[in-house]
């Protein structure tokens, strides 16, 4: 329960802080500090229990099917980290309160800080690998937010993004490794995993698992070669650097390595990967730190170096080294955080962190200087400070390394070099800033900050001293508890003491100290010449490399993408055709499907002739479509007629009727559109470019093969005996007895499969609405407005309002108008005829509706839009709506008879004279179809036709600029 509280309090605090107004500085700090302190108290409260029972565990179910639970688990190791996190959190809250300026949105800062704290606590308290990962990534995310806190600065944005990408990527690798662990162990529970150490080490996936885990841990801990994000993360406010980037978050990686040390260590893989990375970071970080110009840069690189030290210790496969590593984790957290705080104070007070500008601050801010000096001494490993003890332990470990001569000699040497470098950069850090002549060109005159701001720093320095002087008293019991948590009963014997006697490590220490001082003195010249430039490796700028890499990724992916995709339609269609063709052919490749027994209907000459003409027309339509649009339209119409005749010939009268009417309406529709297309004069006959020729050939091949494929498929299918128990037989048999109609097609449409029809009329309605909506925003092409209309078929150049009262149009259209208007009642009658008889004979709602619509379109053609619309005729939109509603009503009427939707229902009315009248819901449904088809067709055609009006208005407006009111 207390564990839940420890985890929940920071998050709750974060939520509260985020809700605070932007000006609530003090409240935010109190909230953060209070939460951290509460956590600390709670953790300490648990100490006795941890000390006695070892582990406290709490399990809440989350996704049981995947074996993921929320397990909170605190052992000695987790306890140690909880204490560090919460204690540092409290100190940082205090420090940050003074550090942040009035312009900053302080509550937001504390909200992120607290959420980070919660996440970090979550990482250490996680008893389930996946849960650990969740919090692990949360730390990355909150770190991202905190680094980017001053997001108006570019370095902050860059640093934040870099940190996020590097640690996030590591997180994904960690996820993979956790998945593999879970796969091997069969559980994500930490205890189960720890118990399965041998199984994991022996598994064939162990190497890849280790690599992935190392990627996760090393990125998080900023280890070589992923160290570069840490210096860039220094764009964060200093409290963040002190907290996340020295004391806690970067420790998550080594936390994890130590946590899994019992499982993974002991193999060569482990040594090489972890130890190698640690060694590189140790040396590289120390080397780079020596030359940094930015105070925080020095600290960042030294952090890399120290974390490298810890990693190296972990990679040494020795239990004593593990002890040293854990010990150094504690020490590093204290002295580095205090150094960061000091650096932050200097920055805050003087306005700069540039080592070349700062000088002689000792006199101006003595308290800060003292604190910084002590911490730096701890960092350098000066005796009587905690850094010394852990360094001694490290030296001792390197001495005992066995194995290859290179590692036997190289490791101690490297240790000494690193020690010397750390002395050098610590010296430089202190001497440059606090000694020497007082600086004069600082942005602000520095002085000691308020006392309260110094307190966190002081507390940490005190801790350094205490541990450094009496390590056995302060840390021995804690360390033992931690080690028991990590190693169980295999805790090695060790002794934390300042003085172990004169031994090799001490000599190494001394050598490092002397070498460091010498190095500092020797490098001053270089430092003055090119301040901040790291010799030899300055070209290996991690940030630059990273940015270049990112840009390369962006550019490379853009290039690859442009190669892998296209924005143009033609290649897309080509690909589509190609894909379809090939996948269709694939199953047919083995052969054996060509019909052997052919059931052919005897061929007819006339039929062949029809298709000779139809096919030729289709080809010609394809050929003419570019330059002779109207011709192409007519030719396609001829092919359509051939289709219609085919339907009729081959026993599909309904289809023939529909095809014919649709054909007519489509022709009118496309003709209405043609006028808006640009004139296309046949290009001057010249040599066609080779690419074009090639493309045409390719397209021709694709088209021809598609045609051939379709033809073959059609032929094979037609000559194949029909499926023996096709559902069609049922329709034929039951159409009359159950469907009450003789025209099976119509019965299928309005009864058996009426739902399809319902959907289909909906499609028609939807299209009509879309067309209407789109055309409301139609814009006539520029040149149709610019060029006088005379060139386009003799329309008047100016717009004359047609005479709406004239009974007949003048001119050529007079005689056609007489005839066509006479045709309207006739066509309406015929449409009703086709509608009503549909159930028994070819016809039905579609055909009827299209006939009716054609009749009305004809009126528009001879009468003109305005003339026709001056008379109350039809509201297409309402017809669409009514059509849907009528069809719906017909479909739903049977509900009240206890039948499902669309069941047909007949009502027999006995009428005098007539006899019984069959009123079938299917007929009503067909009436709905009829109405919708009429409405939709008319709406589309008329909407398109109305664009002429729009153009005319534009022309009128263009002609008479004064007259800009809209027409009726």
């Amino acid at each position, binding site marked *: 329960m207390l564990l839940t509280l420890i985890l929940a309090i920071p998050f709750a605090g974060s939520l509260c802080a985020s809700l605070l107004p932007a000006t609530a500085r003090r409240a935010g700090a109190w909230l953060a500090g209070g939460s951290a302190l509460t956590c600390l108290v709670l953790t300490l409260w648990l100490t006795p229990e941890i000390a006695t029972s070892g582990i406290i565990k709490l399990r809440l179910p989350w996704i049981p099917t995947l074996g993921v639970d929320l397990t909170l688990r605190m052992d000695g190791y987790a306890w140690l980290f909880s204490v560090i996190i919460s204690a540092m959190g409290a100190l940082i809250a205090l420090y940050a309160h003074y550090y942040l300026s009035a312009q900053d949105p302080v509550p937001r800062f504390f909200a992120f800080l607290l959420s980070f704290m919660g996440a970090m606590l979550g990482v250490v308290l996680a008893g389930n690998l996946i849960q650990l990962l969740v919090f692990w990534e949360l730390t990355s995310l909150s770190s991202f937010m905190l680094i980017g806190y001053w997001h108006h600065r570019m370095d902050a944005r860059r640093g934040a993004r870099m940190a996020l990408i590097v640690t996030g990527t590591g997180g994904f690798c960690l996820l993979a490794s956790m998945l593999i662990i879970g796969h091997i162990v069969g559980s994500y529970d930490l205890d189960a995993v720890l118990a399965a150490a041998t199984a994991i080490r022996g598994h064939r996936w162990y190497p890849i698992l280790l690599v992935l885990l190392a990627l996760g841990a090393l990125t998080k801990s900023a280890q070589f070669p992923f160290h570069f994000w840490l210096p860039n993360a220094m764009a964060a406010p200093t409290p963040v650097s002190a907290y996340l980037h020295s004391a806690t978050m970067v420790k998550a990686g080594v936390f994890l390595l130590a946590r899994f040390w019992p499982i993974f260590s002991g193999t060569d893989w482990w040594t090489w990967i972890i130890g190698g990375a640690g060694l590189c970071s140790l040396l590289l970080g120390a080397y780079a730190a020596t030359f940094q110009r930015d105070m925080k840069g020095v600290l960042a690189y030294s952090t890399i170096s120290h974390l490298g030290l810890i990693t190296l210790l972990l990679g040494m496969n020795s239990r004593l080294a593990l002890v040293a590593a854990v010990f150094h984790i504690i020490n590093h957290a204290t002295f580095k955080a205090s150094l960061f705080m000091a650096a932050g104070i200097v920055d805050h007070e003087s306005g700069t962190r540039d080592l070349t500008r700062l000088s002689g601050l000792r006199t101006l801010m003595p308290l800060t200087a003292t604190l910084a000096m002590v911490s730096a001494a701890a960092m350098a490993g000066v005796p009587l400070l905690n850094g010394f003890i852990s360094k001694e332990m490290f030296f001792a470990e390197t001495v005992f390394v066995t194995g290859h001569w290179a590692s036997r000699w190289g490791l101690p040497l490297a240790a000494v070099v690193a020690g010397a470098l750390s002395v050098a950069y610590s010296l430089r850090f202190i001497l440059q800033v606090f000694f020497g002549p007082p600086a004069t060109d600082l942005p602000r005159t520095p002085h000691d900050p308020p006392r309260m701001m110094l307190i966190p720093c002081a507390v940490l320095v005190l801790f350094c001293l205490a541990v450094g002087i009496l390590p056995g008293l302060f840390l021995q019991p804690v360390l033992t508890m931690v080690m028991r948590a990590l190693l169980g009963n295999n805790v090695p014997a060790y002794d934390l003491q300042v003085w172990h006697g004169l031994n090799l490590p001490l000599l190494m220490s001394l050598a490092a100290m002397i070498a460091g001082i010498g190095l500092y003195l020797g490098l001053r010249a270089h430092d003055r010449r090119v301040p901040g430039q790291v010799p030899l490796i300055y070209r290996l700028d991690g940030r630059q490399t990273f940015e270049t890499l990112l840009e390369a990724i962006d550019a490379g992916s853009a290039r690859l993408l442009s190669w892998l995709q296209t924005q143009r339609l033609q290649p897309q269609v080509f690909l589509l055709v190609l894909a379809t063709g090939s996948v269709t052919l694939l199953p047919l490749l083995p052969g054996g499907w060509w019909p052997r027994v*052919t059931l052919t209907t005897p061929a007819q000459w006339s039929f062949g002739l029809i298709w000779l003409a139809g096919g030729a027309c289709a080809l010609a339509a394809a050929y003419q*479509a570019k330059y002779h649009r109207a011709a192409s339209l007519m030719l396609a119409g001829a092919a359509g007629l051939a289709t219609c005749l085919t339907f009729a010939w081959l026993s599909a009268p309904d*289809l023939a009727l529909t095809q014919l009417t649709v054909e007519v309406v489509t022709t009118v529709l496309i003709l209405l559109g*043609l006028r808006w297309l640009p004139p296309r004069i046949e290009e001057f006959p010249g040599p066609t470019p080779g690419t074009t020729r090639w493309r045409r050939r390719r397209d021709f091949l694709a088209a021809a093969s598609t045609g051939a494929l379709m033809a073959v498929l059609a032929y094979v299918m037609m*000559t194949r005996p029909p499926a023996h128990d096709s559902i069609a037989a049922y329709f034929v048999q039951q*159409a009359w007895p159950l469907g009450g109609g003789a025209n099976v097609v119509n019965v*299928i449409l309005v009864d058996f499969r009426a739902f399809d029809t319902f959907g289909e009329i909906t499609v028609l309605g939807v299209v009509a609405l879309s067309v209407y909506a789109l055309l409301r925003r139609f814009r006539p092409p520029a040149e149709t407005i610019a060029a006088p209309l005379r060139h386009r078929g003799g329309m008047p150049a100016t717009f004359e309002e047609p005479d709406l009262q004239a009974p007949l149009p003048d001119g050529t259209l007079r005689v056609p108008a007489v005839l066509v208007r006479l045709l309207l009642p006739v066509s309406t009658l015929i449409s009703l005829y086709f509608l009503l008889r549909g159930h028994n004979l070819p016809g039905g709602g579609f055909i009827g509706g299209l006939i009716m619509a054609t009749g009305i379109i004809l009126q528009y053609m001879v009468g003109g839009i305005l003339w026709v619309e001056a008379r109350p005729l039809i509201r297409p939109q309402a017809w669409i709506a009514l059509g849907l509603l009528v069809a719906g009503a017909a479909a739903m009427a049977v509900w009240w008879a206890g039948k499902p939707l669309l069941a047909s229902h007949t009502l027999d009315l006995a009428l005098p004279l007539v006899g019984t009248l069959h009123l079938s819901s299917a007929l009503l449904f067909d009436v709905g179809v009829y109405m919708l088809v009429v409405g939709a067709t008319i709406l589309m055609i008329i909407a398109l036709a109305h664009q002429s009006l729009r153009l005319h208005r534009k022309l009128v407006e263009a002609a008479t600029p004064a007259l800009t009111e809209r027409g009726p």
Partner: protein
Amino acid sequence: MEWILALAIGVLAGSGVWLLLRPRTFQFIMGLALLGYAVNLFIFAMGRLRVDAPPVIDPAWADPASYADPLPQALVLTAIVIGFATTALFLVVLLASRGMSDTDHVDGEEHRA
């Protein structure tokens, strides 16, 4: 008959596909129309060919074997209407595209080699 119809379907489909691969919107819409015929005939052909056997039944003699398969016909009917609707929509879209981009290229811009 079968081979004639199969060839017809092939020719229609081939012309349609050729047009679909062309760069002008009008060519595309004609391609849709031609391909539409081909597809409709193809669906229709799946019911196998019958001459003089329209599925308008004599109530007394509803033997499935003596009538053409009505189901593909119903499907084609639906397909014709949907094809009509989509042709109309595509037409309007191409007009809108033409009005806004001042070109009738399918990509809304001219590609000059």
